[in-house]
């Protein structure tokens, strides 16, 4: 990545962090519902999404803020959605857990763990059938990889040559259960190989490494029209769903990963290499806070849906 794209990546990651921190704060004051934050996982979202082009489609899940914001979603409309307001991307019908924004190519978000894995094959089948360059990117967690649909989806995608980049965000946690309690496997990548699919595992807290691996994987999917599995090894620094005191988390593990906070790591690197001054970095953070202030104002001013919306959009 060039210094410019690295700085852009930092800006996006800071924006995501500011968005989620703001929502945590609002939740504490009773002004917004709780959310599943992706604090600590920003490099994975930004690294992958920055490797895509505009015609690619993204499927995601309950922990979607990073993917949506990396893709250019409007923080005000996202917050409005979390608050159940009419100007949210889903008119307040989704709340935080399944925000889709078709206009920016984020489709069919599902909060049924593994749900997006089952839908991605169909989206890719449409792409393959109806033509077009775009590929499908499916974000899912390490927990979703424990669902049977993970196997079913990868098997079908490999068999039918579906252009899907599977991205397993391996954040070590599956709600309140550590990954070590749910599987003996250290990585999901060997499961791709078993089904005839290529895959790679990458340090998910290093945005440059994620971006490079994703760019290579995207190029391979575009060229071969075959699926690829990318695993980003990262860590969920906050709880599963706000509020969550993380009392069940091993403090030394948490400390270790806090030391690898992807934003702090990137910022330190850019400052060390003389690509960004401390003042410039502070300005990036201040800008993000400003954007969040307007976003909160927009979301709080947005009206709630009307009673007539209760039964609207059930049927086409």
């Amino acid at each position, binding site marked *: 990545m060039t210094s410019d794209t690295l700085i852009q990546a930092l800006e996006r990651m800071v924006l995501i962090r500011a968005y989620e921190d703001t929502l945590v704060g609002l939740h504490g004051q009773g002004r917004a519902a709780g959310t599943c934050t992706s604090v600590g996982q920003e490099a994975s979202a930004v690294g992958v999404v920055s490797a895509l082009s505009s015609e690619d*489609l993204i499927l995601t899940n309950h922990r979607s803020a990073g993917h949506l914001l990396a893709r250019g979603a409007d923080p005000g409309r996202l917050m409005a959605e979390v608050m159940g307001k009419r100007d*949210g*991307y*889903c*008119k*307040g*019908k*989704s709340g935080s857990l*399944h925000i*889709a*924004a*078709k206009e920016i190519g984020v*489709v*069919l*978000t*599902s909060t*049924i763990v593994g*749900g997006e*894995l*089952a*839908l*991605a*094959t*169909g*989206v*890719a*089948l*449409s*792409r393959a*059938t*109806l033509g077009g360059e775009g590929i499908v990117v499916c974000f899912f967690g390490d927990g979703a990889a424990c669902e*049977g*649909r993970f196997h*079913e*989806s990868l*098997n*079908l995608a490999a*068999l*039918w040559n579906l252009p899907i980049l599977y991205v397993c965000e391996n954040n070590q946690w599956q709600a309140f259960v550590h990954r070590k309690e749910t599987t003996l496997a250290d990585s999901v990548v060997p499961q791709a190989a078993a089904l005839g699919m290529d895959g790679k595992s990458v340090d998910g807290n290093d945005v440059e490494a994620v971006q490079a691996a994703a760019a290579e994987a995207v190029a391979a999917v575009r060229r071969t029209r075959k699926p690829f599995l990318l695993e980003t090894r990262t860590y969920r620094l906050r709880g599963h769903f706000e509020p969550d005191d993380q009392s069940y988390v091993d403090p030394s593990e948490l400390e270790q990963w806090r030391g690898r906070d992807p934003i702090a790591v990137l910022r330190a690197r850019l400052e060390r290499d003389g690509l960004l001054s401390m003042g410039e970095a502070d300005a990036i953070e201040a800008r993000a806070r400003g954007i969040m202030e307007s976003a909160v104002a927009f979301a709080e001013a947005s009206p709630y849906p009307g009673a007539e919306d209760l039964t*609207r*959009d*059930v*049927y*086409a």
Partner: protein
Amino acid sequence: MPTMTVTDAVSAALAEEMRRDPTVLLMGEGVATKRLPLVEEFGAPRVRNTPLAEGIIAGTAAGAAATGLRPVIDLLFAPFLTYAMDEIVNSAGKLRYISGGQFAFPMVVLAQTGAGWGVGAQHNHNNEAWFVHSPGLKVVMPSNPADAKGLLKAAIRDDNPVLFFTDIGLAYADGPVPDGDAVVPLGKAAVLREGADVTLVSYAKTVHGCVQAAARLAEAGIEAEVIDLRTLKPLDEDTILRSVRKTGRLVVVHEASRMCGVGAEIAALVAEKAFGSLRAPVVRLTGPDAPAPASYPLEQAFVPQAEAIESAARGLVEGR
């Protein structure tokens, strides 16, 4: 009018709709093997055998439906739908609403069920009411080949997910099927016989029991009106209510179990909206709260038969 079975009527509808609309495709375990003429006419990409994995078949259909295709999937037997419940109920049924109307799911799920082949409870389970209870879905269950063809054509053209159940016991029964593009609209019941004394409401194979019962009742001077629902959701409330307001008596008949079945809904509907017209309590004749047995006599005993329907209707009319 040509004669064909329900199975052939389904194939005919598929062929006509695939010819009409290049976005229609068929997927399932063995669809390309069993419906070879479709493969020959439309090619392998549109008639796809799948791995043995109902969940991903249904999910692939939902994902494809939301992004430009009109998939029809054959999940074989209704009990197998349990493996695809998430994709049908949580994805296809809800993601339109949850997303504020951003997506539509024009897809059809085919499944067979019902007594007739002695296949037992893991292949025979009339679970259609589960889907009637789920928002965002439509549910169809025809009683004859002409409706099977016409309703399937309508289901494929519908922009919503449609569960299309065919009755095992009717699969190879012949019937006349009109030539050409005879679409039977969803949500419209058929009045198979008019009568002023009692209304018999049913769908799928028990419609035939109602028709037989009505013929015998006529011999005794009792005129029964027979309604074939054809579509369970949306339910044709008007046709049911109009009939009950006329006859004042209602027998609802289905093979599915009683508790929270479609018959319960119809009885409640009539109690809410036509109570004043009722001259006798509503009677439900249904399968028992039991899994479907394989043994032939038990399998038959599971299904309400013409004699029972006749006797229930007679009881209502004679005030017994």
